[in-house]
């Protein structure tokens, strides 16, 4: 009996091996969960703490508790309202344009793309480039005096513009640069979606005499819905964090026309040295993105 017990424990492996095998599911997940907890939960809590204080630029002075004061400022601060409006306008216009252009191009080229795989290769370049490089490139193109865009306007007999420096065109200029960089993203995702469409329903629909327009509405769009949702989710989340392009192209100007939330928070935190209020605004942005992305992901069952 004793002997059996001993040999059994040898054959079953040591206690460490037993324990590791049984807890492997937790052991493999733990580092990531702990790192991400440290990098997200800690900042969130700390930010909440910062948001209820007035923090002096002088590090020797203690933080002054102001309760909901910073949050109250969100409601009364006209600059914040401008930044919020600019962010919303940018997000809606840029993502809509990118979506329509990307989807249209994908539908048009779907049948030809197999022979044109180099096109996919070329089109992926803009979105991989460093946003800063994209920003200076467009700054060079928009440059009012010697920029290439004004040269084209001139050649076409149109009035030259200040573009990023023009009160009415600044936001438009930012949007164009963003559309240039991110339309290919929608295009490639839509192509991937189209490539996975089954053939049979289309054959059936064609036999039933459905027009191409009907086929698009009744078949293509419903099939693409999951891919469209993912593409839009990622683009909207990305658009909400817009910073680099604005920082380089306009610096938020002229007349605050391109001041977006990220930029305003940055300015408040560092130029105006008011981290408490910036933290309050950050919490607002965090809240909005969590609500938006949760809604999106829940609807799409992305976590499956």
């Amino acid at each position, binding site marked *: 009996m004793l002997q059996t017990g001993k040999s*059994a424990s040898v*054959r*079953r*492996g040591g206690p460490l*091996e*037993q324990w590791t*095998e049984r807890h492997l599911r937790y052991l493999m997940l733990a580092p990531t969960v702990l790192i991400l907890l440290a990098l997200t939960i800690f900042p969130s809590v700390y930010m909440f703490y910062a948001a209820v204080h007035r923090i002096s630029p002088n590090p020797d002075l203690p933080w002054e508790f102001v309760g909901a004061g910073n949050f109250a400022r969100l409601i009364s601060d006209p600059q914040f309202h401008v930044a919020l409006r600019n962010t919303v306008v940018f997000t809606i216009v840029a993502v809509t344009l990118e979506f329509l252009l990307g989807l249209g191009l994908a539908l048009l080229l779907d049948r030809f793309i197999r022979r044109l795989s180099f096109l996919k290769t070329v089109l992926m370049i803009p979105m991989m480039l460093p946003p800063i490089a994209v920003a200076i490139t467009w700054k060079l193109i928009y440059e009012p005096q010697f920029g290439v865009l004004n040269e084209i306007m001139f050649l076409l007999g149109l009035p030259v513009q200040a573009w990023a420096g023009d009160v009415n065109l600044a936001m438009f200029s930012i949007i164009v640069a963003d559309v240039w960089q991110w339309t290919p993203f929608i295009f490639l995702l839509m192509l991937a979606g189209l490539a996975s469409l089954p053939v049979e329903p289309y054959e059936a629909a064609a036999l039933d005499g459905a027009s191409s327009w009907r086929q698009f509405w009744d078949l293509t769009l419903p099939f693409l819905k999951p891919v469209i949702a993912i593409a839009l989710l990622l683009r909207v989340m990305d658009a909400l964090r817009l910073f680099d392009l604005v920082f380089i192209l306009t610096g938020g100007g002229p007349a605050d026309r391109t001041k977006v939330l990220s930029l305003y928070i940055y300015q408040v935190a560092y130029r105006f040295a008011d981290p408490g209020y910036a933290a309050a605004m950050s919490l607002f942005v965090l809240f909005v993105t969590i609500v938006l992305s949760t809604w999106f992901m829940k609807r799409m069952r992305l976590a499956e």
Partner: protein
Amino acid sequence: MASVRFDNVTKKFGEFVAVHDFNLEIRDKEFLVLLGPSGCGKTTTMRMVAGLEEATTGDIYINSERINDVLPKYRDVAMVFQSYALYPHLSVEDNIGYPLKIRKVPPEEYKRRIGEVARRVELDTMLKRLPKELSGGQRQRVALARAIVRTPRVFLMDEPLSNLDAKLRTQMRAELKHLQHELQVTTIYVTHDQIEAMTLAHRVAVMNRGVIEQLGTPREIYNDPRTLFVAGFIGSPAMNLIPGEVKDGVFASAGLRVGGAGRISIARAVLGVRPEDVHAASAEDPDVNLVASIYSVELTGENTLVSLQLGGRLMTLRADKNFAGQIDQRLGVRIETDRMFLFDAETERRVDF
């Protein structure tokens, strides 16, 4: 030397009960087939032996050792998967040698054993190839070789032949049977194919909805089905199962009367009779149990399968290959009463008479 025993084993996936209060002892050197339709729990049962699933309750033993808590690597069982599960990044040699490498077998013995096994399954000329360069049958052999390279205590085979074409399957079936006989290793074999079960098994456990419906030799299962499910599942073409009523030992259903069931009575009964135990006779013959019109006539080569219209259903009989009846023709039928079965439709169990 290994027997496998299940003591009241239950496996649940969430609310779904895959295996219910399962009891079975697989004897040393036995070839046991778990047979049943998909979703009956047969694969789950086998995976619990391998340690790929944990029993929710109950105990599993190999010999006298309870293995519920033994890590898979220490259970010393080998498994052949339905998809073969060959490691695509390893050559045939490394695939076969993987179990040895894990056990740190010394190089000379490693080489020797791989060579031995490869010769046995006729793969010795393709040891350097990758799985994707092999045919379906060859892949199957690699999977088999990987299982037998280390003489495990138990072989587990999960529908190993189902991805082969019909001809190869028949051939491999014979080889498997021979191999098991030669190696004398306890084998649990899962399949939904009754021909495989009948031809390979020492004993068959017919499973349905997580329980064993009947356990017995292939002959017992075929000749002596204990439940309606087993009666309907085993045999091709399937046994005729005709609902009706038994009164004083006489079964009656639309147009059909069969006597000879002693003196029993069953309000809701099912008559079971295999096609080969139903004989064609002249419609004028006074001894026939039934006269019905022919619905279809199918020549299989060795016999003719004749379907008759009986109420709203069909009754099949296996007739001589020279059977000459035509569709819609009236045909008399005689049933071998000592080869018929009666089932209680309520309990789905057989009623002896």
